[in-house]
């Protein structure tokens, strides 16, 4: 059997001397794995985040299969000198690699992933990353309810999220439970992706999504690449947000 699709490289692993096992997040077939037997020139294409026109073929559907690639665009080269966006790219691909089940299509998430990849070269890459993690949670069935207060129904002044239910609450409701709720940065309920919040707000957002990714979605510690991204933001906060 054989199919063609467009996809983004999530992970590569050397197989033998020249071959690579490539994990690709495709538009219509979800995350798929296959063997790519390239040479040293084609190996250079296989950087995570690279978009490919891919053909997958195998004798039987449950075989690992072989890839044939034609590179469409490589965002990675633009990011190599940018520690923040590069860490975000590695974190997002690592999360997709560990969280997405194989051969299940998530076209909506793929769209969000592509938007995030486009945004990596923009000033609002950090907010775009947060919205991608929220989309990942939602697509895999663990979406957070952040549009209105779970108790009062108001849509303004939402400041915290219950770690038990994943529902947002307004300031008046959150006040007695201070310290026990997860902070909700204002740019999330506003859905303002072009916003450029303080690094502390991004860290709060990453704490929020990280909590639910670890507890609900993965059931194990977050990938080291995600931890490294948080460390990157802590460093940026210490440099830029210093009073």
């Amino acid at each position, binding site marked *: 059997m054989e199919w063609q699709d467009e996809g983004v490289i999530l992970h590569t692993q050397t197989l033998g001397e020249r071959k690579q096992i490539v994990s690709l997040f495709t538009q219509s077939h979800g995350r798929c794995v296959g063997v790519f037997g390239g040479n040293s020139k084609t190996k250079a294409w296989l*950087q995570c*985040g690279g978009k490919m026109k891919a053909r997958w073929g195998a004798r039987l559907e449950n075989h690992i299969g072989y890839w044939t690639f034609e590179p469409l665009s490589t965002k990675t*080269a*633009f990011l*190599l*000198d940018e520690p923040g966006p590069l*860490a975000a790219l590695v974190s997002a691909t690592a999360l997709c690699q560990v969280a997405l089940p194989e051969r299940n299509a998530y076209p909506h998430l793929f769209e969000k992933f592509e938007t995030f990849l486009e945004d990596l070269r923009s000033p609002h890459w950090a907010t775009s990353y947060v919205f991608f993690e929220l989309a990942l949670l939602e697509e895999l069935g663990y979406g957070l309810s952040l549009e209105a207060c779970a108790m009062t129904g108001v849509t303004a002044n939402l400041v915290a999220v219950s770690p038990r239910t994943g529902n947002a609450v307004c300031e008046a409701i959150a006040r007695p439970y201070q310290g026990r709720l997860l902070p909700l940065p204002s740019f999330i309920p506003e859905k303002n992706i072009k916003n450029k919040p303080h690094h502390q707000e991004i860290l709060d957002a990453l704490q929020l999504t990280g909590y639910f990714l670890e507890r609900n979605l993965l059931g194990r510690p977050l990938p080291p*690449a995600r931890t*490294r991204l948080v460390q990157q933001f802590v*460093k940026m906060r210490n440099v830029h947000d210093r009073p």
Partner: protein
Amino acid sequence: MISSELKTLIQLLSKLPGLGPRSGKRIALHLLQNRNTTLSTLTTSLQEVGIKVKECSVCGNLDSQDPCILCQSSQRDSSILCIVESVADLWALERTSSYKGQYHVLGGVLSALDGVGPEDLRISSLFNRCRTGAIQEVILALNATVEGQTTNHYLTERLKELGISHISSLARGVPVGGELDYLDEGTLSTALLSRRRV
């Protein structure tokens, strides 16, 4: 048909990089047909390399001396340190004959998904070398891959904390003999950004 000793030799040869069972057989036959010239000298050489060649305790290079000949050389600038991923990269840079400083072989690059962390690489020994105060400049000569550049950023942060202010990395751009039409947009863009006055 084939003796067990010969079978073992063919199996071992066919596991070497770039070789398969057919090439293994060809090499084994060649060695046996040239016992006096090739086989005996190869056996001696393999034994010597196995006994004498070790990893340099300072830089991680492979040599029969410890510290290696590069670390011991008085003609090399000991204030400049070039960080490479593997010994193969060190040899590649030595081929250029244009670098006369010291080296440090990391033994890999950071890779979150493959579970390679700083503790799996020769990073602590690198920091120990930098703490002595003898190193003034560090050149990061790692591959232009996502893992290579992630390692670059990690090392840059840590080396700055150690007080190394002069840190550089290899340039990226148009290779010698490269045609612009065939280059990807990322490489071209990097080449444009790092253009130099002529």
